[in-house]
């Protein structure tokens, strides 16, 4: 399948060069090992926030580096977690002595490589706190698995931690807020078509024309089930039901933040249509969508689908959400 690449091997490195070339006032790209840091890091007396993960989910994470969000991001190969080296180097570059929060999506590879980096840093007196994101209700959480996958809530955790760090919160406080976001978020995604793997030029899975993958992962992992295709409102209702049913009793009340992300090929028209139904569906359940974010912020190459995330807000989280942010992909108040 034709794509806008030069060669499968250079996709990640060329895209990073493009990001650095078009955001010189914001980003600094380091090589060997690869990471992307705020140009003005380390920021004195402030906790740093570092995330990372496999590439192919852009703008996450590099697009979220900048004042009010990430201090640095470590992009791995396509769909492959970054190496411990990358994480270690990024933290060393941005840590100002106040410690660093590591935002980690719950995949074995990510967890282990960040953990190794944290060990190496600790041995050297650099303090880190890890916030693990595991919000995907499509995967059952049990001690017999590696737990749930981290998806959309990652973006929300990064925003809130970045805002808390910017206002001067301590390492423990920033981490606690990140964990609070992670704990109060639930997500589910569905795909009508898989993404195209650059190395092979083929889709990572094939779906018949009348079926969808419900509960899909952002690396094209299979989800809860293959289901018949339905009008999008029905799919949104189904996703919302799964998300809402998963919150602990009593948690899902009051004001929520709705995050709708296209997974790569969903058009803005489609994202808006999904958001329309999701807002109405939450409304019908007596919840107020006090904040929302709609667009393609966490993707899976060119997958056709969306992922929905609901975060139960409190005053503090709403305030941190509203705080200024200036990154390539998310910007307000600055």
């Amino acid at each position, binding site marked *: 399948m034709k794509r806008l690449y030069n060669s499968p091997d250079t996709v990640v490195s060329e895209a990073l060069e493009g990001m650095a070339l078009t955001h010189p006032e914001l980003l600094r790209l380091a090589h060997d090992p690869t990471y992307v840091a705020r140009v003005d890091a380390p920021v004195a007396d402030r906790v740093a926030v570092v995330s990372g993960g496999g590439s192919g989910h852009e703008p996450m994470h590099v697009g979220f580096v900048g004042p009010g969000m990430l201090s640095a991001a470590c992009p791995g190969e396509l769909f492959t977690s970054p190496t*411990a080296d990358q994480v270690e180097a990024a933290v060393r570059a941005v840590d100002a002595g106040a410690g660093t929060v590591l935002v980690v999506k719950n995949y074995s590879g990510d967890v282990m*490589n960040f953990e190794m980096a944290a060990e190496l840093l600790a041995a050297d007196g650099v303090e880190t706190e890890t916030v693990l994101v595991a919000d995907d209700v499509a995967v059952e959480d049990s001690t*017999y698995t590696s737990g749930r996958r981290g998806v959309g809530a990652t973006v929300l955790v990064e925003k809130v931690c970045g805002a808390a760090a910017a206002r001067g919160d301590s390492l423990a406080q920033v981490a606690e807020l990140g964990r609070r976001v992670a704990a109060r978020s639930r997500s589910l995604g569905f795909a009508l078509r898989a993404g195209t793997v650059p190395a092979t030029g083929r889709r990572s899975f094939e779906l018949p024309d009348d079926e969808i993958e419900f509960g899909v992962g952002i690396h094209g992992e299979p989800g809860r089930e293959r289901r018949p295709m339905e009008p999008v409102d029905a799919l949104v209702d189904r996703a919302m039901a799964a998300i809402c049913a998963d919150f602990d009793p009593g948690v899902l009340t009051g004001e929520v933040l709705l995050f709708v992300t296209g997974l790569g090929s969903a058009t803005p028209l489609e994202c808006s249509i999904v958001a329309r139904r999701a807002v109405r569906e939450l409304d019908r359940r007596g919840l107020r969508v006090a904040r929302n974010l709609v667009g393609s912020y966490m993707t899976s190459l060119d997958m056709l689908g969306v992922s929905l995330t609901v975060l139960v807000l409190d005053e503090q989280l709403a305030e941190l959400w509203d705080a200024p942010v200036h990154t390539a992909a998310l910007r307000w108040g600055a």
Partner: protein
Amino acid sequence: MAERLAATDVTAVFRGFQQAVQRDRDLLTDLDTAVGDGDHGTNLDRGMRAAVEALDATPPDTPGAVFNLVGRRLVSTVGGASGALYGTAFLRAAKAAGAAPELDAAGFAAVLRDATTGIAERGKCAAGDKTMYDVWTAASAAADAALGDGLAAVLAAASIAADAAEQQLVPWQARRGRASYLGERSEGHRDPGAVSSRLLFDCFAAWAAA
């Protein structure tokens, strides 16, 4: 028959492992496509090429230094679960090997024991989780049992046990790593990390048999 592993011997084994991974790259990736994200072959191939390059550039002079260099290169270039796990295993092996110029049967078994523990700790996994750990722990137990028979016997025993373990776990359900998301659907599939680990032990045995 060689009863001691010097730095050049361990280097030769890793060269063999690099070739085996390169040869079976697509197999490993296909296995990972079925139960994971289809990158295990690419990941390990990238890492072992880098490791062998480093061994060529600055040949280490103790087994411990070889393990250390390979471990470091894997940690730097692989990423993913296998980068952390193989990296940890070889860095722990390096520590266990210390500055000794050679490893005998007991030395190798001790190194293997620590490397295996490293995997368990890093992966927070146990026997029966259907991961590469099942292969390593089987190999390590067999090595311990064969201690009295000398290094060649230890390496042969480890390899035979690794092969058997890899085959044994096929029908199981995965409980760690990406394959665990599949639940029951992981049953009947080979585990990519177990298969690549088996290749490694086969390379040690092949060196001893050569």
